[in-house]
């Protein structure tokens, strides 16, 4: 009961803080990638409101609410974070900052980084000063992430890195990259990889956007040509980078899965159906039935993400089961966007039509079940590690 009192007090405080600090322009409910601030050296704020929203949130530690205060966070508990997010949703606030530093490198560094690294890198991420991208996949490797060919030769005080990464999200806009590099070519596949941090401005680093079927270019190819990486730019031990990568993949999966679900997403489908059909009971019964099934599954999947977060908070490792969230969340999201496209009919068949650019969102979802481990890889992980089924 005391807990409840404390949480209620927290809710009042955070509500008041939001009321005072979140600019009106940032309360438009736009939470797509192009509306949110991603930070970094070259970030151009879309408005003064976007800038001050970032600065105020960062000052209060709310760009990374769960991180400790010493690294720029607000040190919130899971329950407090939930309240913060609820209050954000209540006023339709955009997140003040989004980045792979927050969602991926940060968690890995909190787990594997040295105290010096945490003090150096984490506050920059929290304030949106440095924008990170990830360098995992390589051409031809596909789902086999441990098949790393980019090599780092040990030159004493540094590694000399040569090779190529692909599917590096927003690498053309990033300041730094965290990358898997093969630093021991003799060791078994998973044992000779290191997790290195590389400045995109370093000599020898180049990057080139890949055009996608949606017309956008969120991904790049990134090339390393005799890039010198000092020995302290490593997370975890040398040749033990796969441990970090695995930990990180779990985080990435949860992030991608929650894109697909939650109540607000569910509302989106219902709202589109209603909007396009002119009234709640859509005029195409077959489509409506499919939308209802999707809604049932979306609500239950949203509850599952919450449940797993609570389990993680309670210290119950969810481990490989995060593959479930990734699989179910992304497959659901694809289904939902197919239905949204159907509900919108020809209005969504233009790149920039009367209902905005829903086609690009729809096409983007097709990558969800590929990036960060395909649905097929997730199912195999679950079959082997959770169900204990034997290898072929």
């Amino acid at each position, binding site marked *: 009961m005391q807990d409840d009192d404390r949480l209620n007090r927290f809710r009042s405080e955070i509500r008041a803080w939001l009321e005072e600090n979140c600019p009106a322009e940032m309360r438009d409910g736009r939470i797509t990638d192009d509306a949110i601030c991603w930070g970094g050296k070259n970030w151009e704020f879309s408005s003064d409101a976007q800038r001050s929203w970032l600065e105020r949130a960062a000052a209060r530690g709310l760009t990374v609410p769960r991180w400790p205060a010493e690294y720029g966070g607000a040190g919130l508990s899971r329950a407090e974070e939930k309240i913060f997010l609820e209050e954000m949703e209540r006023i339709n606030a955009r997140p003040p900052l989004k980045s792979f530093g927050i969602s991926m490198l940060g968690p890995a560094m909190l787990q594997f980084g040295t105290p010096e690294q945490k003090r150096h890198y984490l506050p920059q991420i929290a304030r949106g000063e440095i924008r990170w991208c990830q360098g995992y996949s390589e051409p031809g490797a596909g789902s086999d992430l441990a098949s790393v060919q980019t090599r780092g030769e040990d030159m004493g005080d540094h590694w000399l890195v040569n090779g190529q990464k692909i599917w590096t999200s927003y690498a053309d806009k990033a300041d730094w990259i965290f990358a898997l590099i093969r630093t021991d070519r003799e060791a078994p596949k998973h044992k000779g990889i290191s997790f290195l941090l590389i400045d995109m401005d370093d000599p020898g680093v180049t990057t080139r956007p890949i055009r996608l079927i949606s017309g956008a270019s969120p991904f790049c190819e990134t090339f390393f040509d005799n890039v010198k990486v000092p020995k302290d730019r490593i997370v975890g031990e040398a040749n033990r980078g796969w441990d970090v990568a695995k930990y990180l993949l779990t985080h990435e999966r949860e992030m991608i899965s929650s894109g697909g679900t939650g109540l607000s997403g569910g509302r989106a489908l*219902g709202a589109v159906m209603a909007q396009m059909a002119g009234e709640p009971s859509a005029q195409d019964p077959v489509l409506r039935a499919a939308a209802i099934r999707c809604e049932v599954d979306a609500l239950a999947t949203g509850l599952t993400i919450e449940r797993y977060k609570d389990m993680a908070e309670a210290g119950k490792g969810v481990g490989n089961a995060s593959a479930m969230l990734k*699989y*179910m969340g992304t497959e659901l999201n694809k289904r939902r966007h197919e239905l949204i496209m159907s509900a919108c009919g020809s209005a969504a068949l233009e790149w920039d039509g009367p209902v905005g650019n829903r086609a690009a969102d729809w096409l983007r979802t097709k990558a969800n079940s590929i990036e960060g481990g395909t649905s097929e890889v997730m*199912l195999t992980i679950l079959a082997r590690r959770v169900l204990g*089924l034997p*290898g072929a």
Partner: protein
Amino acid sequence: MLADNARGFLDEAAPVRALRDLRDAGRTHDPALWRRICDMGWAGVLIPEDAGGADMGHAAAGVLAHEMGRTLACTPFLSSAVIAATILRRIGGERAKSAMAAIAAGELTHALAIDEAHKFAPEATAMTAERHGNGFRLSGKKCFVVDGGFADRLLVLARTGEEGLTLFDLPADRAGITRTAQGMIDSRDAARIAFENVEATGDDVLGQVGGAMTALKPGLEAGQAALAAEMSGLAAGAFDMTVGYLKDRKQFGQPIGSFQALQHRAAHLWCEIEVTASAILNAGRVLDTDPNEATLAVSLAKARATSTAQLAVMEGVQMHGGIGMTDEYDMGFYMKRARVGSEWLGDYGYHAEQVAALRGM
């Protein structure tokens, strides 16, 4: 804890074997099993302590129902300890209290007589309870009255002229009541019940005349949530049996569970079961904390449990191959119970429409 204890007891006292034996003996109810269950206090899980219950709430009832689903335990838990108990509790008062005490102690069992046609549709009730003197005369037919073949008392929904639907609590042996057993595919009890000018007094009315839904709705929702939990347990039981078979059974020289297509389907099924588990837990939680706003959570749970249980038993039979089709093997019992559970208290379409309505779709 509760789950582990329940599982230990049920594995010993009510494995699928017990249901099979009951069926082969031509019976649909095992009073000795129910006696043992009542002695453990399960019948009082939703009954206040001052009426002799354990008052553990709907989440706990869901845990018990889940475990009973896992072994297909054949008991009147849902009819009596969940639905009737919730209705009586909502009614309140001394009479209800003593009725609850009788349920908790295992002295009486109740069945809910609500369906009149092939689908769950309480609002369409045609059975009449006409005012007659100081009381009522009930006439009409009910079917698919689960546990109605042996229950001591019947909760009966009937229409009272213009006043609307009224709920009666009658002894099953009152004059004018005729029960006919239905030979159900899941080997559980159900009855067709005819009411011919059955006399009832004002004391037999639960709540207000024309106000059946006040107490019936929470009772139905508690039952739907517990049934969903039972079906999620059923799905888990069928799934465990299937995964075990995939590991043991060899074909073309290897365990069939090493074939990727079966691995992926089994993993997908596990995901569906996990997602449904969340909906079940949520329904229990909402019924305990915000019972007047539980319809969405309950219908979500029942809809998900229905589709998941059906997938689990279909994959279960298919992955077992021929042996899954034999009566000798237990999988068929799971398949048949899943089908009955799918229909009872509202099927997938019914609950999906409830979700749609509440979500403005």
